[in-house]
């Protein structure tokens, strides 16, 4: 699914999913936050990989 607002991004290293619908409230990222608006210095909450290490889940 690749419609802005409903996209999901997978951490390449551990598979953690960033879902735009859900955001990541624990890190101050509100539900509905588009991937491009996620701060560039945000790290994978599970394995600390960088934002650049997430890839679009196109399923």
């Amino acid at each position, binding site marked *: 699914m690749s419609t802005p607002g409903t996209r999901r991004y*997978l*951490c*390449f*290293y*551990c*598979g953690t999913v960033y879902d735009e619908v859900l955001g990541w409230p624990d890190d101050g990222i509100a539900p509905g936050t588009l991937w491009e608006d996620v701060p560039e210095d945000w*790290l994978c*909450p*599970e*394995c*600390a*990989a960088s934002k650049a*290490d997430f*890839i679009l*889940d196109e*399923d």
Partner: protein
Amino acid sequence: MTTATLDHPAHVPANRVIDFDLFHFPVDGLEYQRSMRDILGANPAPVLWTPRNGGHWIAHSHETVAKVLADADHFSSRRIMVGPHDDTRPPLVPLQLDPPHHAPYRALLQQALSPKAVGQLGERARELSIELIEGFVTDGECEFIGQFAQHLPIAIFMEIVGLPASDRPYLTSIAETAMRGETEAERGQASGQLLAYGMQKVAERKASPGADLISTIAAAQVDGKSIDDFTLAGMVLLLLLGGLDTVASTLGFYAQFLARNPEHRRALVEQPGLIPNANEELLRRFPIAILAREVKAAVELGGVTLHAGDLIMVPTPMDGLDERKFADPLTVDFNREKPGANSTFGGGVHRCVGSMLARTELRIFLEEWLKRIPDFSIKPGTDPKVSARSVATITSLHLTWPVR
């Protein structure tokens, strides 16, 4: 030995010198990581120096380990291991290439090891895992390394690269010698054998391409040109060493821990929902890789100045076992918050490209083994040992369990 008796270069402060030999330090039983931490802990400074193995720095805190791995401008991966360096051998590509040269080669591997590709491989790993365990569960015992740890990840790897399962015993044997042979000559000879095997496969795939990773690499173009044989050799050698050795080694540390800790076993049996976090916690507690980097340009690190050409050892356990980052770090706590933020898989631009596959295989081991063999222990009378150079492994691990 006191620091006063140890030689060191003029730019190394005497109070940073420690007598530590990566290849000959005493390991207490199977406690490789704890033993290293204890010995290095004699000097709490974040960066140390040892005169052993040609003389090298040691990153000794979570901050310095992470910083070295993240800073490719100052720390080159031209040299990735402590010990002699042979420039005539093909570099392990992309691991021993610095940015930006590593990127196109790394992209080739990333396609084969993406989360999507790993999802499909995971199903195969589960089938194989069940098949292996069912094969010996009624025996009440097994030699875990030979009968499981060297089968599961290696069979999956062999499928990725399209190698016949019948070659597994030969490949695991020479990979073991290449990594941990007694002498430099033995290790060099085994690396040469691995290389010759890999290049033979490259030649075969060039002549008759398949859908496997070696065929992909053999046919790939970088900057509009085919990859030359010297570089291809380095890529194949990295695949063979990385794919054959690391997950098998980690499985050994997982199994010995669970064999000796019935409460932890029971927690996972009774609450399988803990397994994903337990997997991360065990990875934090039992890293196996002792990396290194070469200093490219003078740089300040941990209160000392490293000079160009110096080598720094980067022990990945010094990140996950640093009490300034993880409270009570030697204790395995399956409920620990975010244990996965560590350097077990390296870091920076060379972070392990196969880590998603490794995580998946390790998790499947926990899930399928504990369903079938919830209680097991190390067989009395056996004496398992750690064999270590730059990657630590347990060479044999006899387990026993009640047959139900």
